[in-house]
């Protein structure tokens, strides 16, 4: 029997009946072996209530063949034995197994780190609360602990960080999240108002509103058997690349701020303003909220807007490149960023790192290239940027280059674009396929976003699962700061700039 159903990121939704239901032991044996190969990584793994207990779904990505492997299993609900933990072999599974443990009390045998993930309101053990997070501790007269959060010094989201230090050196950092949990996944299925679902998607992570909403829209379109026409697909790519430019510039500035390099800081602040004001001139919102809608758009580009975007992006590219060239020659900056916060390639792969952080550790994870959909699949052949040094500077250097690349893409896409009136108005009521599983993979500026939905026989969405790249990458930050001075934590943190709200949901 086939263990997996094979599909890809451009195919339509799959019928639940077509998804193999396999024996967990067989799946475990297969994954134990298969996941040693870096061409595979896990996109999503979750459980959902069915009549006779729980059904587990797993989505695996094959980066070489662009295939998405889907499977499921349904263990005996009354069995007390638990499941053998995949995390024990492949740490990349840790957030998924922890989530299922937290929600349903499933025991994963030999899981090395079966701790709460986000303290959701519908967790199994209500006695487990934010305040009782079981932090790791080490005994020793020489050691001390540093507690940070949940409220941080700046205007940012909350999360609790605990460092165990030997003098100024960090031995261990543990990050406890969940403070931002507001019930995204359960609100997604509270009712079937798709405008409401779209707005929830926009609020998963405000700095990635365009990317997350694109994932939602593509997921819905697959269920509605709707192929977006080329113009719509093209405009979505312009939007998502603008978002990437804005956030990469913001992070360049933030890294400069943390080492007191004011010139780059203010230059990047101004450039980010210019970028998000361009998005605002397009759709009325600086973060691109309202720009992406299922089955259409409320803000199709006009000749004037195309002209404006091209002009601004060209200027942003020119000015950012000046900053970029100067950064690459600034010894005081390089001295702080080079060889700091290392996450070696194999380590990044083991923990399932994705996105620009993975690429900065020379691990090619980029949905635009490996599992492209829409315009990326047909027109724009993306060449991912990777860096070899695996340090803070690499993560900055990836941004430095990606801003220019995204700007070039936008220019290339818009140069010969003469919009017609083809783009439809959004449709919030198109009938959706029943008894189906639909997923969408989108490369946001942080990395791989994966949304999965299940429908009932009437085409109502009954389960909605969101995965922000931060779910994988928070562990990379914890690894990066090991053995660094604690004073280098801020630059490491900024070099990843992970999402709290995208993680906590």
């Amino acid at each position, binding site marked *: 029997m086939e263990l997996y159903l094979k599909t890809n990121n451009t195919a339509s939704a799959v019928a639940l009946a077509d998804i193999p239901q396999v024996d967990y032991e067989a799946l475990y044996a297969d994954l134990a072996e298969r996941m040693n190969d870096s061409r595979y990584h896990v996109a999503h793994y979750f459980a959902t209530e069915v009549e006779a207990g729980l059904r587990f779904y797993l989505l695996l990505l094959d980066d070489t063949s662009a295939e998405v492997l889907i499977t499921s299993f349904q263990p005996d609900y009354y069995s007390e034995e638990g499941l053998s933990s995949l995390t024990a072999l492949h740490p990349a599974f840790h957030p998924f197994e922890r989530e299922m443990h937290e929600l349903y009390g499933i025991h994963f045998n030999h899981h090395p780190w079966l701790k709460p993930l986000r303290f*959701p*309101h519908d967790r199994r053990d209500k006695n487990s609360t934010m*305040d009782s997070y079981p932090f790791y501790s080490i005994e020793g007269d020489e050691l001390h602990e540093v507690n940070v959060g*949940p*409220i941080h*010094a*700046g*205007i*940012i*989201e*909350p999360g609790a960080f605990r460092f165990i230090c030997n003098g100024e050196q960090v031995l261990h950092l543990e990050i406890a999240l*969940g*403070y*931002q*949990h*507001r*019930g995204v996944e*359960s*609100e997604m299925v*509270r009712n079937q*108002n798709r*405008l409401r679902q779209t*707005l*929830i998607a926009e*609020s998963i*992570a*405000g*700095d990635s*509103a365009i990317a997350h909403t694109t994932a939602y829209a593509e997921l819905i379109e697959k269920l509605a058997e709707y192929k977006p026409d080329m113009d719509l697909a093209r405009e979505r790519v312009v939007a998502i690349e603008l978002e990437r430019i804005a956030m990469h510039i*913001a992070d360049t500035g933030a890294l400069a701020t943390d080492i007191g390099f004011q*010139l780059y800081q*203010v230059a990047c*602040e*101004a450039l980010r*303003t210019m970028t998000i*004001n361009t998005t*605002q*001139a*397009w*759709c*009325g*919102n*600086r*973060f691109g*909220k*309202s720009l992406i809608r299922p089955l259409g758009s*409320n803000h199709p580009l006009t000749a004037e807007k195309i002209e404006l975007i091209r002009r601004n992006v060209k200027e942003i590219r*020119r*000015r950012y490149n*000046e*900053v970029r*060239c*100067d950064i690459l*020659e*600034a010894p005081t900056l390089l001295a702080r960023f080079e060889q700091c916060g290392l996450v070696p390639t194999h380590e990044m792969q083991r923990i399932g790192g994705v996105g620009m952080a993975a690429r900065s550790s020379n691990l090619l994870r980029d949905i635009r290239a490996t599992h492209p959909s829409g315009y990326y699949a047909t027109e724009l052949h993306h060449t991912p940027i990777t860096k070899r040094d695996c340090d803070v500077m690499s993560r900055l250097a990836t941004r430095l280059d990606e801003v220019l690349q995204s700007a070039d893409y936008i220019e290339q896409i818009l140069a010969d674009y003469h919009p017609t009136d083809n783009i439809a*108005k959004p449709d*919030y009521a198109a009938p959706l396929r029943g008894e189906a599983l639909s997923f969408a993979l989108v490369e946001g500026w942080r990395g791989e976003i994966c949304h999965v939905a299940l429908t009932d026989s009437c085409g109502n969405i009954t389960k909605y699962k969101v995965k922000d790249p931060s779910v994988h990458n928070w562990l990379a930050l914890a690894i990066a700061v090991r053995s660094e001075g604690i004073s280098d934590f801020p630059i490491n943190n900024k070099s990843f700039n992970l*999402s709290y*709200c995208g993680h*906590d949901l």
Partner: protein
Amino acid sequence: MLFGKAKILRSHGWQYIPDLKNVTLTEEFRGFPLLSDTDTKDDIERAAAICPTGAISTSPLTLDMGKCLFCGECARCAPRNIRFTNNYRLAATRREDLIVEVGQTEPKFDREAVRPEIAKYFGKALQLREVSAGGDASIEMELGATGNVNFDFGRYGVGFTASPRHADGLVLTGPISRNMAEALDICYHAIAEPKIVVVCGSEAISGGLYAESPAVERSFITKYKVDLWLPGAPTHPLCFIDGITRLREKR
């Protein structure tokens, strides 16, 4: 090296907005909504039905900016009833003033509701502690932007501080996740009196999309005196700057 820096400086020139009180945003920006009645109610009923946060009431027609996420969809369903203008001066001193009525042409900012001691103590300098409780990061970034090179709100002595002990007030963002409710409360009490409370963003004002979620705990809003309500999703930096400026003005 120096040449590179000189180039960056020359390329950027002056970036700050000279007069923060007279900025006009792009026509696309959705700010204060204008409402009008029509004979038939069909359009507006459709708009009310699709509004994801229940911000619209039909009889009589009102739109609650404290619930509105400014998605603009209602204005597409009922263009004769609702039109969003680019007026970003949305601040209110009383929660009920955020409910816009038919024929209203300006947001209501009730000076009478401003405590006189605010101008007295905070008129020259105001340091704020921001607490995000389920905010989606866009609003936190907008608050950060108020101090950036373009807006430079710091020139009026307003800024954000790390410790609540150094703060004159609290700025709340997010629908108040249950897991943050206690930390928020502790932070509030750590700020010395007299202090102000600013509730920033529609999600914070009403809970927004998460108003009915079991994962939020919103008693903070009713427990403490709120001095300023700032709608938006996210609140535009200029809305924040305008609201805080008017709150501190001497009467």
